[in-house]
């Protein structure tokens, strides 16, 4: 089963290494990881998607991560009503005769065209993993040159911040 964890950590060099090192050493399965600064300068927020067999294994992941001195708090967002987003940039072949078709697709997906030249376009899309997968699949017919995707980030709905949960 897949779980989404929001991990608040000290914004110090080496923290991400500590976390990724622990995850690989304990042989947990990480599907995605994304880290960045937060509204507090000294805190980094890491969103981790972890694939585990059962609740017991999830508890182990959380407990082991919590032991790291620089980990301040871990919140399990899986069962909390929350927004999950990834960002993808897709470079696709776009000749004059296919360009308008691609523009239509982009509109349907509410994506954005962020670069156009004589032969290609770059499309930016944020959304859940499945939506990005769907767009990629449609664009395959036109010839995808390269894709870059971020790890997932997640934020709960409602007024309460993760650090106060």
């Amino acid at each position, binding site marked *: 089963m897949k779980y989404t964890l929001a991990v608040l*950590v*000290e914004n110090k*060099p*080496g923290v991400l*290494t*500590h976390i990724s*090192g*622990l995850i690989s*050493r304990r042989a947990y399965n990480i599907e995605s990881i994304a880290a960045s600064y937060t509204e507090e300068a000294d805190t980094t927020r890491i969103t981790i998607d972890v694939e585990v067999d059962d609740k*017991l294994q999830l*508890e*182990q992941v959380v*407990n*082991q991560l*919590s*032991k*790291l*001195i*620089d*980990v*301040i*708090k871990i919140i399990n967002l899986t069962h909390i009503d929350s927004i999950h987003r990834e960002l993808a940039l897709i470079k696709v072949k776009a000749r004059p005769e296919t360009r308008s078709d691609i523009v239509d697709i982009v509109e349907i997906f509410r994506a954005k065209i962020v670069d156009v030249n004589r032969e290609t376009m770059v499309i930016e899309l944020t959304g859940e993993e499945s939506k990005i997968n769907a767009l990629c699949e449609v664009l395959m017919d036109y010839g995808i040159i390269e894709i870059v995707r971020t790890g997932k980030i997640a934020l709960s709905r409602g007024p309460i911040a993760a650090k106060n949960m």
Partner: protein
Amino acid sequence: MEFLGADVIIESLKKEGAEVVFGYPGGAVLPLYDALYRMKFPHVLARHEQGAVHAADGYARATGKVGVCIATSGPGATNLITGIATAYMDSVPLVAITGQVGVSLIGKDSFQEADVRGITTPITKHNYLVKKIQDLPRVIKEAFYIARSGRPGPVVIDISKDVFNDKIDYKYPEDVKLRGYSPVFAGDEATIELVVEKMRQAKKPLFFVGGGVNISDTSDLLRKITELTGFPVISSLMGLGCISSSDADNLGMVGMHGTYAANMATIECDLLLGVGVRFDDRVTGLVKDFAPRAQVVHFDIDPAEINKNIIADIRVVGDLRWSLPLLYEKAADYDCQEWRKNIDPWLVTVCDWKRQKPLGYKCSDEVIMPQLVIETVSQLTNGDAVIVTDVGQHQMWTAQYYQFLNQRSFLTSGGLGTMGYGLPAAIGAQLGLPEKTVVLFTGDGSIMMNCQEMATAANNNVAVKIIVMNNQVLGMVSQWQRMFYEERYSHTCLKGRTDFVKLAEAMGVTGLRVTKPSELQATLAEAFRIEGPVLVDVWLPDAEDVLPMVPANCRLDQMVLGG
């Protein structure tokens, strides 16, 4: 007042109560060694950085204080790795200070540069790289706090050479502020009540004590509880000494080389109270069949230990110094005579197991039996010595046959199983407890892995008694080859021309040898009479097995018995 970075370290060590550091100098720590010299701080020069870190570990285990060691950058630091990992696996409070190359040289593959923080991340409780002197006092304060609090463990402080030479207006911080670290002390009191309820209902209860009891110095409390309840006790390797070996209720060590009674009791019990244990695979045997009839209660300070190897029915997360007094208090509210009636048949059963199949071996007039060596030393020291071992057959025989009386009296590398741990650890223990007799049981394999530390013992007149259980083989590996590899003794024969008596004497340690059972007692007694460090080379037969033995992936009651 302005202080050099190197002097800040020494001042801070004093503030943390460090009495002695173990180390080895080198380029990157020259300024720190200069400060040691100028400020006359006690330092023991090991003969290898691995010796320094194991000595700090032995000091810490014996005294309960934080052990401190120092090594230079690059190879100095990497030589600490085995010792840091050893301390990590056994939850030993340790601060390892390593020099790092100058700030501008970091990351350039400079001379004697190694990424110490990267290398030590998986084997430390925490680690630091200090590149600015402003961070130094805080980091040292945090390092000691983290090492000794909660579940103890090693902390590495890697310090750039520039920081030693830089100056700062020094003030040692009073408090530690760590948002992500607040070790639990008190847990949920209601769980203790639940445990007492289970204890009252149990017909076949069993206490299982581990290293956590030694670390938290709670063996007295535990004894009070076992005396109150009458429940029998088994111990992990790391828990030995918590309950006196001679106690009638003590069934001895459990696991791969556990006693018949301890292993059978684990299979048959209906309530297993694990106290400061982590259900290591050497304890559980086939993990799915461990304590198959029991409800498991797990007392531990580290929430990550709960449900890691064995699923606990009740978890008591908290410091044993919180949970055990509370357990005693709540249990004492009840009429224990009443519960004792419940468990009487169980006590008869475990006593029968203990009586019918005690540990045993075939005595001999021809050759010195290894078990006899341990028993003889046990008698000569009245169980009151600090016993240190290396790793292998001699380690298991010591665990089985030495009659321990006190907590913190058995120092051994349990988790990592580090050959070469023993001699330096014994030196550290002796320096921490100068009044105590410190005995090292080692093997002819293990002793060679840090034999250079005999020079450290001799030069500092550290009076450790080194008993080399010399069977001319790597005993434990050859035992497995005998049992599971059809006697193909691949590279386990050590028969050669090494003369341990001469080796000892070459380094300034008195060397004795004993080859006949009739001379064993007298030779060992002489070793204890002689002042200063002594090595006794004890010649043993080469094909003696450590028994009982539960083969890998077998249930605890599927033992190969001996005797």
